[in-house]
């Protein structure tokens, strides 16, 4: 085999890993923190460029079938890189403002994203396991970034204990699948497997591991607590990049490892989990006053919608899932970004929705942007969130899962209440006291505006740089 060729297929992760190592050295030698930030941005832009190149490249497997490239895998790498880049961009001012801007943060993010890309492109259970763990270790650390305050350490502790606990199940699942088939490579497993109890139990436990990472109900309990205790911009990172990676890996597992085997029927399971996730996520989100917690529950609900597409199990459904992940990434980072901007102002506690009264008029661009992102999260046309929902629900209907789609529509209907509540406070309530907002930095502001434009752009006519995005994605299946 040609290592260089293989390395080329894994280039985004390689760039990020190398950049992470350099970032650590820079931190060790006390480089100016702004330089580390700039360096990280440059590295991520390079990685993004490479990953966009890979979107149009061939597909296959590399490194002795350890990883896949091209197609869905390339899309996963692209999504992770995109999400990481925007999260890093919005992080600097925010971490500075909350006084937790450490040099090592950027290295941790880069390492975490390396793991995510590894996870998203994995073609072997071993690679999957290591990708998940590399990602998780970094996330555990980032969850505890608010040092010296109780909530910071608490969220990290919850995350690490429950995460490691779920790792146990994930690893057990891999072990049982390995026992049943004598292999870990997806293709070989698919060829050797039969629907024995051993294999089924292994698949079940593997799925448990996934369900934890994508915070599906009832494996979701850590999500709101961890999201609340984590610095907001990194919460965005948790909610988008890591979720996208996990979902893409799940798509690969479901489409490459499971379907060849007779007697393994996942639709019903995925349906039940999807229904639970949509209902519970939306219901609890309704009663939240903390905006971050509200978004955490909403992200649980969104995981439910994505599971609808997975339950459909058709190429159409997987296409919908990929599109939804893209939509979800841009609109969610946007929403968290605006909230992070508000939080930079210490005049009030801007995680409490009551303090958003009249805020939409303070710095109109930010208010409008937040509204755009929230409308998109509701799934109102013509924003990208609507198309995402449309694709997954339509796929479910076409696969005969009408009930599931109807429940999905109803559940997303309920979500109007809590998203709208934020907007009502933004525009229709009088502020309690007078205060001034800080001006957002140029990079911060323009990247959020860019996300807002993307949210609208891909909701109206999804033209990717060269081709319709959905057409491009559908070629991956």
């Amino acid at each position, binding site marked *: 085999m040609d290592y260089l060729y293989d390395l080329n297929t894994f280039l985004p992760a390689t760039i990020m890993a190398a950049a992470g190592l350099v970032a650590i050295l820079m931190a060790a030698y006390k480089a100016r923190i702004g330089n580390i930030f700039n360096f990280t941005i440059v590295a991520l832009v390079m990685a993004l460029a490479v990953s966009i190149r890979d979107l149009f490249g061939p597909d296959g497997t590399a490194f002795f079938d350890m990883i896949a490239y091209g197609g869905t895998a390339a899309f996963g790498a692209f999504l992770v890189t995109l999400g990481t880049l925007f999260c890093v961009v919005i992080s600097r001012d925010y971490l500075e403002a909350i006084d937790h801007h450490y040099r090592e943060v950027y290295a941790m993010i880069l390492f975490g994203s390396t793991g995510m890309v590894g996870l998203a492109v994995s073609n072997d259970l071993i690679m999957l396991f290591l990708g998940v763990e590399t990602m998780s*270790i970094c996330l*555990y650390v980032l969850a*505890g970034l608010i040092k010296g305050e109780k909530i910071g*350490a608490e969220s990290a502790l919850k995350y690490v*204990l429950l995460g490691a606990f779920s790792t146990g199940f994930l690893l057990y699942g*891999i072990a049982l699948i390995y026992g049943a088939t*004598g292999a870990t490579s997806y293709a070989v497993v698919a060829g050797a497997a039969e629907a024995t109890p051993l294999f089924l139990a292994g698949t079940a436990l593997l799925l448990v591991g996934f369900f934890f990472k994508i915070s599906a109900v009832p494996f979701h309990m850590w999500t709101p607590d961890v999201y609340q205790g984590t610095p907001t911009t990194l919460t965005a990172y948790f909610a988008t990049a890591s979720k996208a990676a996990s979902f893409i890996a799940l798509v690969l597992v479901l489409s490459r490892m499971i379907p060849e085997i007779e007697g393994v029927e996942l639709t019903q399971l995925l349906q039940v989990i999807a229904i639970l996730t949509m209902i519970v996520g939306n219901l609890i989100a309704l009663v939240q006053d903390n905006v971050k917690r509200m978004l955490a529950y909403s992200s649980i609900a969104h995981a439910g919608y994505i599971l609808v597409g997975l339950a459909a199990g058709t190429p159409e459904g997987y296409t919908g899932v990929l599109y939804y992940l893209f939509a979800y990434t841009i609109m969610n980072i946007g929403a968290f970004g605006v909230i992070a901007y508000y939080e930079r102002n210490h005049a009030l506690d801007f995680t409490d929705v009551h303090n958003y009264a009249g805020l939409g008029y303070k710095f109109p661009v930010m208010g409008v942007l937040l509204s755009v992102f929230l409308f998109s999260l509701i799934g109102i046309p013509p924003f990208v969130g609507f198309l995402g929902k449309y694709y997954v629900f339509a796929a479910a209907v076409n696969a005969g899962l009408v009930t599931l789609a109807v429940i999905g529509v109803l559940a997303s209907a309920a979500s109007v209440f809590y998203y709208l509540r934020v907007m009502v406070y933004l525009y229709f309530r009088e502020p309690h006291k007078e205060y001034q907002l800080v001006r957002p930095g140029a990079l911060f502001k323009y990247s959020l505006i860019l996300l807002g434009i993307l949210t609208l752009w891909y909701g109206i006519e999804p033209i990717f740089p060269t081709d319709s995005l959905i057409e491009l994605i559908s070629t991956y299946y």
Partner: protein
Amino acid sequence: MVEIDWYLALSAILFTIGALGVLIRRNAVVVLMCIELMLNAVNISLVSFASYHGDITGQILVFFSLSVAAAEAVVGLAIIIAIFRNNLSVDITRINLLRW
């Protein structure tokens, strides 16, 4: 000659005991140890599968899982130290500021 069932059953028993420990112990350090116990139990399954398959993949995976367990232990313990600094306690039932 010990049949593979026995190894697997032992692995399941140890896994279950570890899980039980996670569910009922309140000391965060002990919970972490119980998780190590669970990972370790899975390793037994992996090694026995590898031996009975005559295939090295399982052993490689155990090697990786040991590394992961080590990494998790390191980070977990660091976080426990951090939480002890803030709360002066590692009792997980008292660490519930974030809820609802």
